[in-house]
């Protein structure tokens, strides 16, 4: 693996009394595609600017391959940035924008020319060398910014929401290209986004941030399937989340089968967990809409580990490959259920508005989050 590892150690940055970053520590591995994910204003750009050298932390350090880079100015760090608004030089052509870092280093003309053309080829801009940035489309601008950031052969590439200004379709394509590019050059990518699906689809690991704090660092799978806090559960994808109290916890196979009392559902449900929990403990319970099964008839056999509720379809939302149902359970609580349309033959009769339905899920598909007072 090429590239450097990046260690952010106890970094805090305050603007007046407002803490933009609060004791942030992250370890990013060599060559990793690492995402910083969080809602707008959570401090992602602030952290990126500190790594790039445009801002310095009040306390804490940033290590690049083990070396503290806080004292270095931005031009002396082997880090390059693709800016949120691209920051292309409007007075220079595409070619000269990409050549800019090389001209600063007085690279001989022939060598410079070859290299600039190589990098513009890499991002498929061979046909637009002479255009000024104002003549380019959003996607093309973004590619110029990437070529320009890569031509210095940095060890770490920082990308600040590089796709946020583009439309959904183009975003998907460019995301895939970005992923290919990462595989091709193999340096460390630190990718900032507030779009969870973007982060989930390309990252090796993700750090989820909120209000200047890192809530969880993990693989997309870990982040999605075992969110560390309520916030992570809600922010990553959709979910059903309820406060709950542990009533019983007993060994079950390799895990523990936990029974939770959920006041909102006025019921007890079962969920498996790796940790043994104490009776009376306050927790949150979450189950993703796609893990819920919706049927028009009562399932004939209900296993010991199945949670079953009945209710009425309040609102079906059809979106092609799937339908989302808002189901009002008998006790009045609304849950979200998602059904994938893979194959209509297996699905049975359509479920429609006001239909009486049954909602069920297995204990293994639910998840206990944020174990308060451990």
């Amino acid at each position, binding site marked *: 693996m090429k590239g450097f590892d990046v260690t952010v150690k106890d970094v805090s940055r305050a603007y007046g009394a407002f803490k933009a970053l609060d004791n942030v520590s992250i370890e990013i591995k060599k060559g990793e595609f690492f995402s910083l994910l969080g809602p707008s204003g959570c401090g992602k750009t602030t952290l990126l600017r500190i790594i790039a050298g445009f801002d310095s932390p009040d306390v804490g350090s940033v290590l690049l391959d083990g070396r503290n880079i806080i004292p270095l100015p931005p*031009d002396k760090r082997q880090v390059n940035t693709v800016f949120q608004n691209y920051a292309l030089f409007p007075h220079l052509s595409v070619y000269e924008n990409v050549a800019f870092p090389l001209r600063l280093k007085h690279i001989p003309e022939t060598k410079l020319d070859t290299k600039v053309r190589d990098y513009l080829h890499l991002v498929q801009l*061979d046909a637009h060398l002479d255009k000024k940035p104002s003549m380019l489309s959003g996607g093309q601008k973004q590619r110029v910014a990437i070529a320009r950031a890569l031509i210095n052969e940095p060890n770490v590439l920082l990308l600040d929401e590089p796709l946020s200004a583009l439309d959904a379709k183009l975003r998907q394509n460019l995301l895939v290209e970005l992923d290919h590019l990462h595989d091709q050059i193999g340096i460390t990518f630190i990718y900032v986004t507030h779009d969870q699906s973007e982060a989930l689809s390309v990252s090796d690991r993700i750090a989820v941030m909120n209000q200047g704090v890192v809530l969880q660092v993990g693989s997309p799978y870990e982040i999605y399937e075992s969110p560390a806090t309520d916030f992570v559960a809600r922010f990553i994808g959709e979910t059903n989340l309820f406060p709950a109290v542990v009533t019983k916890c007993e060994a079950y196979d390799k895990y523990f089968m936990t029974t939770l009392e959920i006041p909102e559902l006025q019921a007890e449900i079962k969920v498996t967990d790796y940790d043994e929990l104490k009776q009376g403990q306050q927790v949150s319970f979450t189950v993703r809409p796609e893990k819920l099964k919706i049927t028009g008839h009562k399932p004939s056999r209900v296993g010991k580990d199945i949670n079953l509720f009945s209710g009425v379809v309040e609102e079906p939302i059809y979106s092609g490959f799937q339908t989302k149902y808002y189901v009002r359970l008998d006790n009045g609580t609304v849950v979200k259920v998602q059904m994938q349309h893979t194959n209509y033959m297996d699905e049975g009769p359509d479920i429609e508005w006001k239909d009486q339905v049954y909602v069920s899920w297995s204990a293994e598909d639910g998840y206990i989050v944020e174990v308060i007072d451990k």
Partner: protein
Amino acid sequence: MMDPRESRGRRLGVTYAAPMGLWLTLFFLVPLLIIVMYSFLKKGLYGGVEWEFTLSAYQQMFNPNFMRVLLRTLWVAFISTVITIFLALPCGYAMARSKHQTLWLGMVIIPFWTNSLIRVYAWIAILSSEGFLNEALKAIGLIKESLPLIYNQGAVVTVLIYMYIPFAILPLFTTIDKFDFGLLEAARDLGATKPQAILKVLIPNIRSGIITAVIFTFIPIFGAYAVPLLVGGKDSYMIGNIIVDQVTKTRNWPLASAFSLIITLLSTLGVVWMMTASARESARSKTAPQVVDANGGVV
């Protein structure tokens, strides 16, 4: 057939432009034509002109004394403009980046509320041999004898810079204010030092502001007459002074007109040259990679 809407739009446009056109004709074009005319007429005995065509004003102009003044005027205007721009650039930059823009703008504009002659007299009070500056330097013991700070070329340049620096700061401030400072960060990120980022990214992007500032300072300085008269010495005479002398003392109106025409002509040529130079520059930076294309043979 012309779209009736379009022809109506055009007629409206003419209507809107009429007051402006009238204004320009009355107060710019007509006086200019009078000056052109006078410069080709014979000098009247007590001022004014006699209606007789002659080139004598132009012949008198090519006199080594006058030429010296013309060259000096060009030189003073040039050097004052260069220094003004160099001082105004960091000022405009600091103002654009400051949180208190209105405050700074006010500070730049407030001096205009005082008559410019009074401000020149203030400078006399500062620079003269018993002025504030000399007395202050004596008081702190840096000098014993007064320095010759006034009635020389240095005083003229200093006061001219003082008078016209707001005209440079304002256009520079407005263009720098529109500049995206993120571009400087991008330049730093790509390996440029601070001065490199300023030189290679800021300056080319605020070129229009620099050109405006140069025009706004060079042209009035080129025609200055009060400042050299009041704080200059014998060798500080500028074309403006010659014109005033020709009108009020020597009463040679045709010669005054000829000099006025020269000022107008040189200034216009200067402006046109700068504008085309900037247009050429931007055209060149656009075609530069194409030259490389021809050599490289790719694309």
